């Protein structure tokens, strides 16, 4: 159990893979935006990889533990501290009753994850504990954490002393640069763009788009040159603007070009769009989008379906007990 002394910018309860199966009524899966760091964090503290933990964005919360437990902080480096002393990341930390966890400067990435032995005990909504803030569902009362909240935790699976001194193998710990290369599958509406523009921007990654200050779990807006659209007689039908199309359902991670602005949709993203989606992130790179922030640069490189499948296999291979070591 812990008490929230300060909520931070956006601290929410999430679990993995989130609320699947309601996309067709407009409810997104939610879940941790960076599922790699989150799932590794859960393995560290002896939980199943999908157990509920906290997602912490840029400015972290201040939390007071009301019971002794074992925690781990993974993901972005937001300078985590216990009782004002820096603590290591990607490694379990034993905390006592009354200890205070806080965060400082954001040194790399965007989202950190706090996992706790036994997970977070909130009632599941439609099969998931993930918070979908905009829809007001899941997590802690369907909202981000605020000062005064008392959050319950579950029963640890292993005795606490067995969880001490556990860390993630160094070569598995991801890096969070400020220049990213995200792999995409072209489509579904790639044929609205002029071929040369499509190839330069979304196949070969010749241009580095800049992440705008408007980025959240719903979507990451990018800044860059205007899109080059095919003339009306050479593209499928559109509306007043070439990017306007008939409404279609879209997968997670679409690059949705709204007017001239590409928005890469995130885990709380839209399920339906009236704008062209020129390419879609591969599922193995979704976690990277959770670590980009304003000012970062993104290049898009196309891959084939088999390359995307290999990438997913590689990602899944990282998330295993073999990569958790006890020193």
């Amino acid at each position, binding site marked *: 159990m812990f008490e929230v002394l300060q909520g931070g910018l956006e601290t929410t309860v999430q679990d993995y893979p989130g609320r699947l199966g309601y996309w067709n009524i407009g409810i997104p899966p939610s879940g941790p935006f960076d599922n790699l760091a989150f799932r590794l964090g859960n393995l560290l503290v002896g939980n199943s990889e999908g157990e509920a933990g906290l997602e912490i964005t840029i400015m972290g919360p201040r939390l007071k533990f009301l019971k002794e437990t074992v925690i781990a902080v993974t993901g972005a480096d937001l300078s985590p501290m216990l009782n004002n002393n820096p603590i290591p990341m990607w490694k379990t930390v034993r905390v006592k009753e009354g200890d205070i966890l806080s965060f400082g400067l954001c040194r790399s990435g965007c989202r950190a994850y706090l996992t706790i032995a036994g997970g977070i005990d909130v009632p599941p909504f439609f099969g998931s504990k993930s918070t979908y803030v905009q829809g007001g569902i899941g997590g802690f009362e369907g909202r981000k954490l605020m000062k005064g909240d008392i959050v319950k935790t579950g029963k640890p699976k292993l005795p606490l002393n067995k969880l001490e001194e556990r860390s993630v193998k160094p070569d598995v710990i991801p890096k969070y640069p400020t220049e990213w290369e995200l792999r995409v599958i072209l489509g579904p509406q790639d044929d609205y763009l002029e071929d040369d523009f499509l190839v330069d921007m979304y196949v070969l990654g010749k241009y580095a788009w800049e992440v705008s200050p408007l980025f959240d779990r719903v979507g990451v807006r990018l800044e860059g040159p205007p899109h080059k659209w095919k003339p009306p007689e050479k593209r499928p039908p559109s509306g007043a603007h070439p990017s306007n199309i008939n409404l279609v359902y879209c997968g997670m991670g679409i690059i949705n070009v709204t*007017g001239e602005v590409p928005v890469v949709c995130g885990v709380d993203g839209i399920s339906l769009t009236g704008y062209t989606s020129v390419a879609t992130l591969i599922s193995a790179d979704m976690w990277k989008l959770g670590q980009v922030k304003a000012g970062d640069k993104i290049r898009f490189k196309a891959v084939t379906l088999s390359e995307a499948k290999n990438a997913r296999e590689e990602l899944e291979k990282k998330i295993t007990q073999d990569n958790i070591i006890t020193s």
Partner: protein
Amino acid sequence: MYPGEVEMLSQSELIKRFRSPYATYRKGKPPFGEYEEARYLLSGDRYLLVEFGDRLNIIINCKAIAFEQEIRKSNIPGILETCVGQLSVLIFYDNFLISFEELVAKLKEIEKRIPPVEKMVLPSRVIEIPVLFHDRWTRECVEDYSRKIKPMEDNCEIVIKYNGLRDLKELIEYTTTPQHWVANMGWMPGNANAFPLDPRYEIRAPKYNPSRTWTPPGALGVGTADKVVYPLRSAGGYQLIGRTPVKVYDPKQENPAFKNSPVLFRVGDRIKFYPITEEEYFEVEKEVEAGTYRYRITSYDLFSVQKYLEFLEDIKEEVEKEMKKRPWAGKNHV
């Protein structure tokens, strides 16, 4: 693939390599309406989009509905979820269990089995939604946009002019006379896109550019030929012409109308808007908050595509006459 191989390929080879082989768009001048064969489009590594046409009409929408029902019946291992769009179906699948190629092959078989749309008879509820037109809240929202983002005329005025209507009274008449067909859900929880089943009452509106940053929940929006009730305070791009005090999304599921689902509408429902006064708005709002509001839902109704097509045939001349009054008639739009 070896390093540098991609850079060696020509532009057309590159596109061929990364684009869906089933995305071929027929040569000629779009739009084509209903395709002879569906396009199978890539939507990332775990989603597949099957598109049946490029022009909104009920036949193509019903084809998508029938296709989705057939997929559900077939229980293909690896399919996790299916979603009906206006003219397409999105399939979410596990690429560890089934490949895109295998899935396309299976779906093409199913495509052949889609029963003739003309013979479809669908269970279709009629749901009545009270609307206060030209209400103070959506007007305030438009004024806020005008002040902060860019000058914007009163949205009812925009829609009246865009459609060559006389006045607000006529806009209300055009919105409340026909039933609206829910062609798809999605976007936000509880959102439903509905278009009028009687084309004589088709009204259109351009979308905002850029979109609004906020919209009051319950706002009635018009965009392209669709109408939506905004389920939540959210961004949005449709012109706002009124507001309903009733909820279309209720995650607490307290009202019996939400017993089986947190969202009110489903694909194939028909929505009938009816006008209310501000006084009535507040009364209904009170009932909604107290949990005593009873939704007006006729749940036993059936919708026969054949009968509907006959109806369209009967009113054909009137539709043509009516369309001549529309300033947008004949323009390229989706």
